[in-house]
């Protein structure tokens, strides 16, 4: 499947891109993270600590064990600091 991957805040800066398109068969978010880490050292460093990250699947906050079947847009970002 084809997924749009979005990055925000310091994650975007460390990876050096706000978005990328990937082809993957990863069944879960966690499996997708494993694939993304293998892309280059920037991805590996930025995605090294899942406890420092949050993920949204099609713009809904989810856990890292969430399935990717049917998903189109996966977004990674640090804990939010609005208000």
């Amino acid at each position, binding site marked *: 499947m084809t997924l749009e991957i979005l990055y*925000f805040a310091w994650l975007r800066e460390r990876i050096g891109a706000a978005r990328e398109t990937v082809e993957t068969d990863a069944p879960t978010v966690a499996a997708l993270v494993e694939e993304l880490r293998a892309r280059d050292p920037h991805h590996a460093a930025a995605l090294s600590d899942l406890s420092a990250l949050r993920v*949204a699947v099609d*713009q809904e906050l989810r856990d890292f064990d969430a399935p990717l079947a049917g998903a189109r847009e996966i977004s990674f970002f640090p804990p*939010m*600091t*609005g*208000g």
Partner: protein
Amino acid sequence: MIDIRVQAEPFDYGQECADFAAAQDGAGAVVTFCGIVRGDGGLEAMEIEHYPGMTERALTAIADEAARRWALTGVLVLHRHGTLSPGAHIMMVATAAPPRASAFSAADFLMDYLKSRAPFWKKEHRPEGPSWVAAKASDEDALTRW
């Protein structure tokens, strides 16, 4: 009755409060809150990044939940993004209800959820360089109150 706005433009807090109050039917109380950029520690600017699309969805979901829990006649959530100067208004919430307790509680609830469930990220620009604001454990803990 639920009004969600995400915008780069400044807003007139006084005018928004007056307009919100005037639009309520059956409310005995209006509670408003405004967040302001603090200029302490030599802060030069506050940059606010957000996730267009998800931001509006998340804010709407939080406001819907507030309206489900309390009998409100109106909810306004307005949040800016972009680069803001010290003293600038970042965001505001307004709630209205027949009794004041519901309006206060709903505004408190909206702020707690907005801080750690709406996709905004703050970056501070100071003389020594820029840095992303880290989320506080207390912000996450605040959600257990509800």
